[in-house]
């Protein structure tokens, strides 16, 4: 069981998680929060112990043991600036990294666009879904799957997985971690509005692939080049022999 009191006591936010929905099981926290229009409060957090259809990019599945991890989504529906949406995306992974560093002093790396790695293994994945009408983004949900206390992983993965328990060698408090994460995230959202460059820099400082030769699988194409930088919109700049290309999405790995 998730101890809501323990979570609440450490939550130090104005709006993130102030409307907190806890459910045993749902198909996908993202889908539920995006489609259930009765949830209107900006910053609503939906935490599910079990997702029957947890998703990643391209309908990849996200598997997670019941009551050991954190699978949740955050709803944003006020004052969403479409030009800052990618920075919000990067900030989400940065908040996860900062929280793990603060609480467990583990060394965390980020992989473009928003995977969180400990010792090169994936401990969190993030998928954002949004809906827009006209030129306005009306709702954004940030779905975060964080491997916390899962003791082992079976099956096949794109990137080898790990959990905080496996790296920290201890079972940790999910409640404390979630409150820390939302506290950091709310601060970062403010920073996105006022100092997006700082957020970008903090993100870049944790990305070890910048400057490396990489392979990027983007749709049906595989591209090779040097991961030169991320631009002011968060896109990856891939330098090839002849040109520089801006990459919107894809799976990045060392060449």
């Amino acid at each position, binding site marked *: 069981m998730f101890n809501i009191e323990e979570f609440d006591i450490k939550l130090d936010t104005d709006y993130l998680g102030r409307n907190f929905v806890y459910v045993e099981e749902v198909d996908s926290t993202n889908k539920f929060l995006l489609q259930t229009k009765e949830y209107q409060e900006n910053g609503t957090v939906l935490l599910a112990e079990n997702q029957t259809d947890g998703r990643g990019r*391209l*309908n990849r599945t996200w598997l997670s043991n019941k009551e050991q991890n954190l699978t949740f989504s955050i709803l944003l529906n006020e004052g969403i600036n479409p030009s800052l949406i990618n920075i919000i*995306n990067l900030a989400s992974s940065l908040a996860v990294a900062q929280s793990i560093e603060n609480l467990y002093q583990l060394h965390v790396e980020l992989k473009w*666009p928003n995977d969180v790695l400990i010792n090169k293994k994936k401990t969190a994945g993030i998928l*954002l*879904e949004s*809906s827009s*009408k006209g030129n306005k*983004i009306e709702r954004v949900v940030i779905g975060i799957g964080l491997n916390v206390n899962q003791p082992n992983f079976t099956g096949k993965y794109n990137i080898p997985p790990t959990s905080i328990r496996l790296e920290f060698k201890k079972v940790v408090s999910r409640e404390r971690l979630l409150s820390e994460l939302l506290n950091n995230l709310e601060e970062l959202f403010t920073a996105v509005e006022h100092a997006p460059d700082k957020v970008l820099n903090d993100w870049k400082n944790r990305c070890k692939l910048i400057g490396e030769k990489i392979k990027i699988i983007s749709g049906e194409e595989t591209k090779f080049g040097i991961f030169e930088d991320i631009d002011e919109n968060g896109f990856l700049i891939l330098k090839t022999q002849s040109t520089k290309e801006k990459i919107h999405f894809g799976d990045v790995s060392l060449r």
Partner: protein
Amino acid sequence: MDNNQKLDFIKKIIKVVEKSEITELSYQEGEIKLKVSKNSPVTQQFSLPGNPQFHHVSLPSHQPETRNESGSQPIDAKDSAAEKTSDLHEIKSPIVGTFYRSPAPDADPYVQIGDTVASGTVLCIVEAMKLMNEIESDINGKIVKILVENATAVEYNQPLFLIKKD
């Protein structure tokens, strides 16, 4: 007149109307047909034959006394201007990313040309950095044109669909 000359001509007419007390002016000569009205902030449409692009010009709103002196009723003028305005509506991308017509590579497209859509119908997805943004129609109507190929890059504000308003 070539298209540039036509545009210059239209701009001149707009200036004349703007400075005068005329609130509405219709003009037709050969293939040029235009109507300028300054009673409402409604977008004006000028159609240039041979040029499929529409040029939208929004006139600044004017002081009420100009309207009062004109004798024409602002509400009527607004209605008739709106009627003449193109009934084609553009759906644009709110973000930079990659355009997808279907929710997954092997799934059916959300919409096809000729489909009737309502406000709120999902038309496509634009993806940027593991953000999947569903774009909904903001009007009721019929899809008449899909302006972008599946799985190609789109820029901020790039038109994606043309919808004929109901």
